[in-house]
Each structure stands twice: as C-alpha cells, then as structure tokens.
C-alpha cells in the first residue's frame, strides 16, 4: 500500500514515449458505439474491427468534446467488444449526453499493478497505437419491451400479471353473481382451525413461527397475512398465541397483525404484547430460544409458516417430542422433506400462498386462487408445447420467456 511513488524519470520517459507515438499513424481499428437495447441510460456497447490480433487492447473513454480520457479496461488481443457502464454514482456524477471511445492496439502486454491511476492512460497510449474515436449516446428507455433484443420475458411477465388481475376481477364478479368456485380441500389448512380448538380445550397456547427471513420475502408476507386470520380465530376461541420472531421488524409487524386480529374478533383486552417475541436474529440462537418456548410453555399446536432453513427439523422434532399438533408450510423445497417427516400436516409450495384465501373464504381472495390456477394451466401448456417445439429445433416458446441473452 505504502510503496514509494515512481521516480520522476520514469514518468518523463513514459511521456516521451507517448509524444513519440503521437507521430505514429492511428490504429486501423474502427470503433462503433451503441446503446444496448432496453438500456437504463448508463450503458454503452463498444465494438471495433481489426483483422489482426495485437498483444492486447486498452479501451479508453471521454465525454464528447473532452480530451480527458479514462482507461476502462485492458483486454486480450482477440477481444473486439466491451460493455461499459458510464457512471456508477448517478447522484454525484449523472451520465453525460454523449461519450467518445477509442481503443489502443498494444504492442506488448501492459501491467498496470505498479502504475498510479493518474499515469495509466499515458502508459497505455505509449504502449500501442490508438484508433480514431467513435461516439455514442447512452439513451435510456422508459419501457422494457424486449422487442429489439428478442428477450420477450419482461413483456410476457407483464401480460401474465395483467391477466391475473383481469381474471381476478372476472372471477370475483362470477362469485358475487352466485357462481360457485371449487377449491380442493387442503387438510393442512383445515387442521389449523382444529389445532386452535384443541389448544383451547387443553388450556395451552398456540405457537406461531413466521419463518426466519426478512419481511420483504413473499413467504414472510404470506405468513403475516395468515397470522391475521389465525389471531382472529385464537381470540374468538379465547385462547393464547405466542409468536416467535427471528427478525425484529417482522416482530413489529406481527405484533400489529395479532393486535388487529384480537381487535377484530372483539377481544382487544385479551391481546398480550409480551406474547409476540423477538428471540434473536441469529438462526440457531433463535432456534434454541423457540425450542425453549416449546419445552417450557408446552404449546398444544405449533404452526410454522414462512421461509425456513436448517432450523426446520430441529424445531419440528422438538415439537414432536412435546406431542404438539404441528402444521408447517414453506416454499423452500430443501426444508419440505424435514417438515413432512416431523409434522402432522405440511403445506407444500403454493399451498402456503392459498391459506389466507382459504381461511377467509372472501370471494375476492378465492377468485385470486382461481386466476393463478389458470395461469398455471397456461404455463403447463407452454412447457409441453415448448418441449415438443424445442425438440424439433424451434425454440419459439423458449425465446418468449427469455429474460437475457436472447
């Protein structure tokens, strides 16, 4: 880090070399600069042509009209393109309207490790032949269509989201008009209500664990939605619910959700804020603390809904030893086998997201299940047709879902 600065003689020699190279002809390389499709306004693709491979390339950039060049990267001799991000700090250095690039065909490989950043441009220019500059503007797009790059994924995704929204409206109208919507029975969800009843009969609390991930994870969000319904039922049954949280902000939200549930059920006084607990944000400390709750407070029913990792089996086995009824649900495929082995009921993947609608029986929520089922059918058809077409060398459906790389 604290090496002596290069001696001035070395710098003078480099500058002399650079002045000498000014007299040399420019590299035959022709540089073209283009903004990539669906650009964010910060990226430019630089490409150049050259029939023979030099020892390496140096890529330089400057704002249009400026002579302050910056060395971007040294590339191997067979390279002919470079993707550049023009700024990494948009608040302090917003992108310019236009940039110019030139490439330097190096006569011999350059090692930049020992050279100060301020001297790198001069060194690279001195070590090769620079091309004429090419210019380009990093124009940003305001909508990602994927049409130019043939990455239709975002467009298809937008259509799917819109389709789910439209179908939800249609099915809600159908349900309101008296049309019946069939939802298959999910024993795990039915067991939640049974579990609450059992806890009430036994005079023991219910333990609810909303996973160990952050609040923004969709499984945690789904778990908070279910907690609202569960808390309401618990309040109606005049039972107790302990919520054990691994993330502080999840505890704050869970606390509000439980409070609302008790309020909604008409028993605001029965709500006990001490029962919604933050244990630890450290995975296994949380696991040990929750196991402590299971051993000491002996809940009759344990509900684990959300995103779980290695603690899943440790929690579920402890609950099994405690002879609690255990209902688990997660979309985390690696933990499903553990829950299935140790719990009475396990909600697999998407079933976790259906619980709230199933429990509330609100027509608008039920209609959303129906809508996502139709999209699932669409995906299944795409998978089958896509597999057949791709097998015959027609990757049309693959391209339809491509997000990058064309």
């Amino acid at each position, binding site marked *: 880090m604290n090496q002596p600065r290069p001696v001035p003689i070395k710098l003078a020699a480099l500058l002399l070399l650079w002045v000498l190279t000014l007299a040399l002809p420019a590299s035959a390389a022709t540089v073209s600069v283009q903004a990539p499709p669906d650009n964010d306004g910060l990226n430019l693709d630089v490409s150049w042509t050259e029939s023979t491979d030099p020892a390496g390339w140096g890529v330089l950039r400057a704002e249009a009209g400026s002579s302050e060049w910056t060395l971007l990267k040294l590339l191997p001799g067979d390279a002919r393109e470079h993707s550049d991000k023009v700024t990494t700090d948009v608040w302090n250095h917003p992108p310019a309207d236009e940039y110019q690039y030139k490439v330097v065909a190096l006569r011999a490989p350059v090692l930049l490790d020992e050279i100060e950043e301020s001297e790198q441009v001069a060194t690279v220019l001195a070590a090769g032949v620079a091309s004429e500059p090419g210019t380009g503007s990093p124009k940003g797009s305001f909508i990602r269509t994927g049409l130019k790059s043939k990455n239709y994924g975002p467009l298809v995704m937008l259509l799917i989201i819109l389709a789910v929204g439209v179908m939800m409206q249609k099915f809600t109208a159908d349900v309101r008009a008296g049309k019946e919507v069939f939802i298959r029975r999910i024993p795990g969800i039915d067991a939640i209500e049974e579990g609450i009843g059992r806890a009430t009969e036994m005079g023991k609390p219910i333990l609810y664990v909303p996973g160990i*991930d952050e609040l923004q994870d969709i499984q945690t969000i789904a778990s908070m939605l279910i907690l609202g319904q569960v808390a309401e039922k618990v309040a109606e049954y005049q039972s107790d619910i302990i919520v054990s949280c691994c993330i502080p902000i999840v505890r704050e939200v869970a606390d509000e959700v439980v409070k609302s549930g008790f309020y909604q059920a008409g028993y605001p006084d029965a709500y006990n804020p001490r029962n919604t607990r933050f244990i630890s944000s450290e995975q296994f400390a949380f696991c040990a603390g929750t196991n402590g709750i299971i051993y000491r407070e002996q809940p009759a029913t344990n509900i684990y809904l959300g995103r779980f990792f290695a603690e899943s089996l440790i929690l579920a086995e402890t609950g099994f030893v405690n002879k609690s009824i255990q209902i688990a649900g997660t979309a985390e495929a690696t933990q499903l086998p553990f829950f299935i082995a140790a719990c009475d009921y396990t909600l697999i993947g998407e079933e976790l997201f259906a619980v709230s609608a199933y429990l509330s029986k609100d027509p608008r929520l039920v209609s959303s299940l129906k809508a996502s089922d139709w999209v699932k059918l669409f995906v299944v058809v795409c998978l089958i047709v896509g597999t057949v077409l791709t097998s015959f060398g027609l990757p049309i459906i693959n391209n339809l879902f491509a997000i990058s790389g064309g």
Partner: protein
Amino acid sequence: MKLDTLVRFQNMDRRWIFLGMGIAILIPMLFPMTLPFKVDERVQSLYDAVEEIPAGSTVFISADFDPASRPELEPFFRANLHHLLRKDVKFVAATLWPSSPPLVMPIFEELTAEYGKEYGKDWCFLGFKDGKELAIKAIGENIPETFPQDIKGNKIGDLAVTRGYKQAKDFAMIINISAGFPGTREYVLQIQGQYDLSIASATTAVSGPDYIPFYKAGQLNGLSAGMPGSAQYELLVFPDGPPEGVRLLATQSVNVLNVGHAFIIILIVLGNIAFFVTRQAEEVE
C-alpha cells in the same frame, strides 16, 4: 412377548437413536480409514472450470458460510484457495454472511502467506455486506460503491487487485461458497442471467439438490455439495496426496458419513421389518 418387543422397538425412546448415532460417528473418528471414492461429474466440471482460468486473472469469491456449515464447506474453501493460488490466480473476496469474516480471514491470511501472495496486490477481502439479494444485485452492478472500503479500512481504489474490476462480470469467475440464504440461488436469480456470469458453487449437502437445476441449465459451471463434494475436490486438487502441512479435512471425514449413513439405513430397515412383522401378526389376529 416377541411382538411386544417389536412394537416397543418401533416406538423406542429417541435418545437410544441419539446414542447409537453418537457412537456411529465416534468410531470412524477414533479409528480413521479412508475408502476410495469417485469424483462426481459436477465437481469435476467445477475443477475443470477453475483449471481453465488463465494465470494472472482475477476471480471473485463470495464466502457465504458460518460456523455451523464450516465442517462441510471449509475443506472446499481451503482446497479451492490452494488451487487458485498455485495457479497464480488473484482474488477479490467478500461475504454476505455476518459471521463469516472472523472465520475466513485467518484462512485467507494463512494460505496467501504460504504462497507468498501480497495483500492488496494479489488478493483482498472486502468484508461483510448486508442487504442479501440487494447486496448481490449491487455486486453485479457496482462493486466500488457497494464496498467503498475493504475489511482493513483501505479505500478500494487504493488496492491494485481491484483496479479494472468494477462489476461482477469483469471477473473471470464468481466462486460462491454457499451455506444457504443468501447464496448461490440468489446469485443465479439476481445476476447470473443478466450479466451472463460464470459461477461455481460449493454448497451444503442439503442445498445441493436445490442447485442441480441451475447446473443442468448451464447457469452454474460446477457444483460441489457437502462433505463428499469437498472430499472429491480435495482429491482433484491433490491427486498424489496433500503436501506437507496440508490436511485434507473432508477426505478424513468421509468415513464418518459412511458409518452415519449406514447407521440410518440399518435403523430404517430394522424399523420396517418390525413394522411388517407386527402388521402381519395384527392381520392374523
């Protein structure tokens, strides 16, 4: 009487199972011996990908593991560092797990010193960054802004090894030692496709099957899962045995897995025999 014993066996106190498991694990630890094993295609592919990195290139190591997963992943981590350092590949490392820096920093220092590598010039450790998926996205977009300083408080711009490496795609490869979340899945979903990155993953045995689809789809260039994966990688890096002073931690522990698995399989088989005998007897009654 005999039936009673079988019923009791099926419902035995789990502490007997714990005792049996404890003994099964202790035996190979006290009397070590290593059976020969084969190398999985996914580990071979990982080794080949590292082998193809030209000397002088720089890779990005995301060491996302903690003390809990250390026995499974440290052997890979060490073998991989040996592999990179002896090939003269430089590295920039970081972690998304808060409990990782005190674990990995001593290993970095020990092995780089062994190969005579200089901090800042041949390698650096940027330390921990919170934000999980957001941090990964930021690594894909802009490393100097995500990690303005390294773990020692040096400005990232002052480190020669990071010059010219602003985004994940600038590196020859991303090597992710991943004990779970955030880890390989998030690297693949957040930035692999977007920047067409070359990512190698070493993960725990339980996460391995989850990442196989990524390997099959070409989104990972290699995958080592759990202790067996680490042992196979050690075998590839040191085919003629370890040099003096180097311990092959996973290779030594593979037998513990052998006996532990055998114990569980025997338990399951015995449990099923007892189950069938009692069920038949009940049907006869």
